């Protein structure tokens, strides 16, 4: 909760947070928000300009661009978020095991990571799509397969650094269990690192999914997806460039919002910026506790 209030103080971050929350909600409840069915074809409305009925106009098949944009949130943002969460979860778990316990576990896990990381990401994704076939799920599976090693690697380094601190040593010495040490002492301090790497790869994953859909390897034809909308608009790029605007701007806005938010999160999570709340409150507590202290003493 403290983090949320601190982000709230940063105007830009608050706007980004609201924007992303709104995007997520709209995506989840797409049927409620979309004014039309996204795959409804109206040939008579081809390339229609924006109107009261179709706010953002219609595309080359006369489909409502706004509705397609809203339905496109699902594959472009929501599913990417799911894939990201899975790979961050795997990476965090393995990174914590390797970085905290070190020794054999670390050596083995890191060699596996090395192997995974030695394949170029795009090529591996293409290979997985080649084996499993085109489609959103397979791209997401490929993402999880490719990304976890990268997360594990970075999180391990961060965890290692904090495992060496003296408050962790103290906690170990007085007999706090390993799980508790990881949750209470290491996770909070490594959270900024995790937030930054996951947000930066969120941006790149959105772009990649769009890229693969653009190539026709991602989501299949009538379904809406931002990258594919761009691809469809490409055909009429010179006669009607405005069709590229809606999906292009949507991608740019979401990716920028995520990046701004992660910057703000990093600042909000910086313990150096925490002050002992208000001097007043501190005094009040001191006063309130004094008589109590005497009673006990």
């Amino acid at each position, binding site marked *: 909760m403290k983090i949320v209030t601190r982000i709230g103080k940063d105007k830009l971050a608050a706007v980004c947070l609201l924007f992303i929350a709104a995007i997520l909600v709209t995506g989840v409840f797409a049927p409620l928000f979309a004014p039309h069915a996204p795959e409804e074809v109206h040939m008579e409305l081809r390339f229609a300009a924006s109107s009261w009925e179709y706010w953002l106009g219609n595309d080359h098949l006369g489909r409502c661009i706004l509705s397609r944009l809203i339905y496109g949130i699902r594959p472009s943002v929501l599913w990417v978020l799911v894939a990201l969460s899975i790979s961050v979860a795997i990476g965090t778990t393995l990174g914590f095991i390797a970085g905290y316990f070190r020794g054999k576990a670390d050596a083995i896990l890191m060699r596996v990571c090395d192997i995974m990381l030695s394949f170029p990401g795009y090529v591996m994704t293409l290979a997985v799509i080649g084996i499993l076939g085109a489609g959103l799920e397979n791209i997401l599976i490929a993402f999880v397969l490719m990304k976890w090693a990268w997360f594990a690697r970075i999180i391990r380094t961060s965890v290692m650094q904090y495992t060496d601190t003296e408050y962790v040593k103290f906690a170990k010495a007085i007999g706090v269990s390993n799980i508790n040490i990881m949750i209470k002492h290491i996770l909070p301090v490594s959270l900024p690192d995790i937030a930054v790497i996951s947000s930066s790869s969120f941006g790149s994953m959105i772009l990649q999914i769009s890229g693969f859909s653009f190539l026709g390897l991602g989501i299949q034809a009538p379904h809406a997806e931002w990258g594919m909308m761009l691809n469809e608009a490409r055909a009429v790029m010179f006669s009607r460039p405005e069709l590229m605007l809606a999906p292009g701007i949507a991608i740019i806005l979401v990716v920028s919002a995520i990046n701004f938010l992660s910057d703000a999160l990093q600042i909000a999570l910086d313990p150096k910026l925490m*002050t002992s709340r208000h001097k007043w409150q501190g005094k009040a507590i001191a006063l309130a506790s004094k008589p109590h202290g005497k009673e006990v003493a």
Partner: protein
Amino acid sequence: MLSVKHVNKSYKKGGLFTRERQQVLSNISFDWQQGECLGIIGESGSGKSTLGQLLLGINEPDQGRILWDGKRVKDRKTRLGNISAVFQDYTSSINPFYTVEQALMEPLMLHKKMRQAHQGNIDQLLHQVGLDSSYRQKYAHELSGGEAQRVCIARAVSTEPRCIVLDEAISSLDGSVQIQILELLKNLKTMYSMGYIFITHDIRAAAYICDRVMILRNGHIVEIVNVEQLKDVQSPYARHLLQMVIT
């Protein structure tokens, strides 16, 4: 009572595939009696901190045993409430997300019996180390080095352990604060009837607070002497060390 028997410790040198190891401690054996203050003195790199970590169960010896009342110190349950620690680097000895109060609560929360009445306890603890209750809400980075070290000492004594391992606990503080903290440690020692294992490279501080002093060199015990007999140590190395302090 803590007993250390024939402990060896080495660290791996270099990469994954080398077998070469650097011997840091060899054949260390000594006993620590209830309530005593044992000093461990040695030059930089002589393995003092490593020994401290072994005593605290943070690290495991390659060979030999470290027993607390006959039970392995490596077991978390053995240490619980019996052993505590203060480290040298006060800048990282308190979780940056914790207030002083939360930091002091951490060891207390481990003990069910201590959980009640902790509110008053914390003020009392802070007073004992010479801080007032307004420090409760402060974060680690808002404390000076001396204050942070006092908080660490308060945190270490909060569960009234029987033994506290102090690894260079005063070395990074300036002279007057060092003396204050040594005084404080002496007072707390009588107040709670606990013992210390006082790791330092400062012979004078050790002589001031310790009952017995163990001199360590390159991972070997050179000599263990009572503080009263510190002047007439036998081994040439110990004499050499003393000479340097006196001149």
